């Protein structure tokens, strides 16, 4: 059964937390748990979602949930999955929710290990493109040109000088059973990927763009719009890796303006015409590769 607003579980599993207004990460967690249901066992490392959801005695998960060490999301998932199996529990899904830093930087080793072992877990990276919980510092998934509190935009350097790490393809290179990209802007696509992942044996990885209004410098009402526009302008893409092959889910005939997408966000406001050209050229090059090589 495909997941939609009509079929989505009306129960809430993540509520009463203190996430900021317009938080894309909490939207992702809330809806994923609706898809996976009450038998999800959630692991969240240090980061926004654990900081807002686990403040004793105000604990905000209706299902089983635990904070892992920052680097240990995947390895703790491994232990929980093995432990539940040993207890003879069959109906459960071990799911991790880690941010971009928790996934692409400090947690990448444990994630790689879990994929290598093909542990039966779902790992969701909610990507808001910087260490937002600690106050908007650059992570390995901060895009080129973004201003953060550790990549200031000045006369000499225009924000972050390096492009985003390509976690989707890094994960796929392990020949993982299932990997996908998504965005909270296209929720049906995202949640159907979650449901699909929940039916596949082995390690599953879903990388979901989850804007942070505070860190991106957008109005709190624009989270979903920004999460759509990043796909529409081609700077993010909706894709899957399955049965050893890449597949693009959405191939827009024309892209919306990269410049419009960037200019709406305070973190990119300093970019020069030349910076925007670098970003646009890089988008075009990536899409040329995708269209040539992916299904």
């Amino acid at each position, binding site marked *: 059964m495909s997941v939609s607003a009509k079929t989505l579980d009306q129960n809430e599993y993540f509520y009463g937390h203190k996430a900021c207004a317009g938080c894309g990460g909490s939207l992702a967690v809330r809806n994923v748990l609706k898809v996976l249901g*009450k*038998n999800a*066992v959630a*692991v969240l490392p240090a980061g926004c979602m*654990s*900081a807002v*959801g*686990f*403040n*004793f*005695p105000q*604990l*905000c*998960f*209706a*299902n*089983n*949930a*635990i*904070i*892992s*060490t920052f*680097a*240990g999301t*995947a*390895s*703790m*998932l*491994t*232990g*929980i*999955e*093995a*432990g*539940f*199996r*040993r*207890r003879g*529990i069959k*109906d*459960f899904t071990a799911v991790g929710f880690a941010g971009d830093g928790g996934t692409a930087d400090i947690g990448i*080793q*444990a994630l*790689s*290990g879990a994929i*290598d*072992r093909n542990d039966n877990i779902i790992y969701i990276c909610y990507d808001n493109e910087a260490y937002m919980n600690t106050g908007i510092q650059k992570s390995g998934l901060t895009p080129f040109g973004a201003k953060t509190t550790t990549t200031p935009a000045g006369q000499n350097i225009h924000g972050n000088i390096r492009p985003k790490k390509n976690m989707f393809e890094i994960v796929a290179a392990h020949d993982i059973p299932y990997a996908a990209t998504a965005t909270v802007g296209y929720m049906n696509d995202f949640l159907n990927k979650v449901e699909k992942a929940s039916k596949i044996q082995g390690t599953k990885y879903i990388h979901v763009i989850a804007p942070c209004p505070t860190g991106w410098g957008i109005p709190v009402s624009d989270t979903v719009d920004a999460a759509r526009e990043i796909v529409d302008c081609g700077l993010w893409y909706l894709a899957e890796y399955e049965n050893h092959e890449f597949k693009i889910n959405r191939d827009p005939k024309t892209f919306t303006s990269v410049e419009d997408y960037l200019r709406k966000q305070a973190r990119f406001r300093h970019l020069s015409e030349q910076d925007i050209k670098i970003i646009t050229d890089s988008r075009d090059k990536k899409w040329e590769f995708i269209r040539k090589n992916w299904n």
Partner: protein
Amino acid sequence: MEKFLSGDEAFAEGIRLACPDVISAYPITPQTIVVEKLSEMVEDGSLDAEFIHVESEHSALSCAMGASAAGVRAFTATSSQGLLYMAECLYYASGGRFPIVMMNANRSTALPWNIYGDQRDSLSQLDSGWIQAYAENAQESLDLALMSYYIAEHKTVSTPFMVNLDGFILTHTYEQVDVPTPEQAGKFLPPYETENKLDPENPKNMAFSAGPDTNYIFKYKEHAAMFRAIPVIEEAERRFAEIFGRQYSGLIDAYLTEDADYILITLGSIAGLCREIAGQLRENGVKAGVLRIRYMRPFPAEALAKAVSSAKALAVLEKDISFGNEGTVFTNVNSALHGAGMTAPAYNFIGGLGGRNISHQDIIRIFETIQSGTAKRVNFIGIGEEENS
């Protein structure tokens, strides 16, 4: 059944008898034999456990915590750099009250690189909230593998347990070891049952944040639980003796200390040599004794002070140094002596760092210098005056 086993092998036999559900393993010398043996036991079906090849020590303990949070018995093993690499998880496991058992092969810490035995790795983690025991021989290693689960998992304790074996000297030295039967082990060690687990019937949020109002209370409870381990250690040893016929002596192991004038305090595998020399000195009319610390946490402050109360002078021999101060065991012992109002002089002897041999003659010299009052407060065995200045 009597077998000829190294310390590592004996420990692996003990773990097989304890039947952990999940074993997370990452290799590091001189711990490797333990995880190799356990993998063979899982392969041949004599141990029914999930053997998980983690990609680092940090993940080894993180995975063990996941298993423990899922409500099952978990084991891992490490050494030296590996212990330091997982240090974050040590504090996490004790704070989460996950009764994981871990073997640590005591090994020197880099730099300079060195694979041989000293105790700087585990002693640097005394504050991490783990029960810390130090085995003397292969038999005690096996027995501690079993007893550690009984103590760690006891409802009043619920605290992780680190069993330390001197690298190579104990991990790789072969001795005759009595390996109990699974039936005996099953009689001794009950299955792990806990409320401190994720549960589909009764969902929980675990490993949460606690602010300034409550954080301190959680920490105090952790501290109190460590002290509650003391009677549980006695209970475990009493039951162990009933079933296996071997009686251990709690937090300390005192040898000829009752009337001793000169007592050497130490820990780990060097204790046997120290006892032999104390025996020889007794034959020459010197009232020598040896006190082996079996548990560094909970620290046996009262038992230790009581056991050495007759002493005119004390030596603390340890394979450790806290740079800029003195040996950490010495600091702990002195605090206990001071707390008990003891005024006999105590001297620290640092030796064996990076696996340097501590000889028969070195131990005799320790007794001689504390007897003559010529020892310094902190003495470095085998370091000459030039290096010492």
